[in-house]
């Protein structure tokens, strides 16, 4: 999956801000460009956060909510970090509402395991399969932080903003996750 938004951080952020300004001025193509730049990263973050169902819908909802409140985006953080924050909030809301609706945590875990098995067949390489399981064994927070750091290349500061923690805590989560992955692979 391509990631058109990632180069050096500063120029990406500037480009995002330019696209936002263009969209606000009425250029609808700027919206398309923004979605193209960040949709894949949002999908990755959703999956690495443990979301398996309707990821595309979650990504769409994230963009809709973001564009509806773009006036509130002041550019203090990067646009992508802001999107992660929105997506994470939606993800938590979705989980809360699901949990309220029916308390079937164990069944969901079984479903997830089945879907992982289906995904496993797509991942031929044994090393990759082991890596995937190693990441899945992490705690939810560790997985989020590890994914944002490794797959998206976010700084600890950006991760802290997206996940709602401190920069130091994000660093600790990352290193604990790395140690856990290594230990799993060494078993």
């Amino acid at each position, binding site marked *: *999956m391509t*990631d058109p938004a*990632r*180069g*050096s*951080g500063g120029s990406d952020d500037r480009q995002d801000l330019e696209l936002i300004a263009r*969209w*606000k*001025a*009425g*250029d*609808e193509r*700027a*919206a*398309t460009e923004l*979605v*193209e730049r960040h*949709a*894949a990263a*949002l*999908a*990755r973050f*959703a*999956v*690495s956060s443990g979301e398996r169902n309707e*990821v*595309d819908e979650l*990504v*769409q909802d994230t*963009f*809709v909510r973001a*564009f*509806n409140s773009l*006036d509130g985006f002041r550019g203090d953080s990067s646009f992508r970090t802001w999107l992660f924050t929105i997506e994470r909030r939606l993800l938590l809301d979705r989980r809360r509402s699901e949990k309220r609706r029916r308390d079937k945590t164990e069944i969901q875990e079984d479903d997830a395991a089945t879907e992982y098995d289906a*995904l496993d067949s*797509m*991942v031929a390489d044994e*090393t*990759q399969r082991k*890596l*995937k399981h*190693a*990441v899945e064994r992490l705690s939810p927070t560790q997985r989020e932080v*590890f*994914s944002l*750091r*490794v*797959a*998206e*290349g976010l*700084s600890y500061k950006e991760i802290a903003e997206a996940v709602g923690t401190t920069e130091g805590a994000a*660093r600790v989560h990352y*290193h604990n996750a*790395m*140690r856990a*992955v*290594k230990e799993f*692979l*060494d078993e």
Partner: protein
Amino acid sequence: MNDCPNAEIRDQLPDLIHERLEVSMRAAVLAHVADCVDCREELELLRGVRAVLVTQAPRIDITHVVAALPKAPAQRRRRQMDWRIAAAVTFLAVGGSSVALLNRTTGVTVGNGVPPVAPVIGQATPLASSAANAVPANVAPANDSQARPAQVVASANEQAAADVSPGGRFADLNEGQLKALLGEIDKLQAVPVTEPEPVSIRVDAKSPAAPDAGGGGAAHDR
């Protein structure tokens, strides 16, 4: 798999993968990695994890997402403006049609739908008497104008405004009637001017006890 004791360099490894390091830092990290087995292994691990995370994410239909997005603010403003323009055009069209219809109706009838028949001489209401002045009929207008001049003039104004329309009735008046009408207009212009005459005031500081000053020390001069 061991951890390199250089935590600072280890912290930079994900940034090295994502090409987010400055030139000098990148060179330093690459130099360290070249000599450090643990960091090389960790770098490979990071690349592998990244590949896995990227592979397992589903592909997103960009068109589908874009279709669900709200319109750009400027587009929204433009649409609101379009609505306002459309509403204004509709209002003008309906209003214009109503006025045109009304004009056409009043061209056929007078007042409250009454057909333009010659009025009865000495009719009680002043409006009717003014209509009698203007409507071409073989009636001497002087009879009515003598009764209540101010009302006759006012109603003559209304009638004159109506007669400016293409369907006006001046052309139907004979010479005597026109003269009578002009006479009424002359009376309208003969209304006395009510504006006060200009007053100028001059203050004479050298003569505080001027004879006509009334104790104020100022001389009023018209």
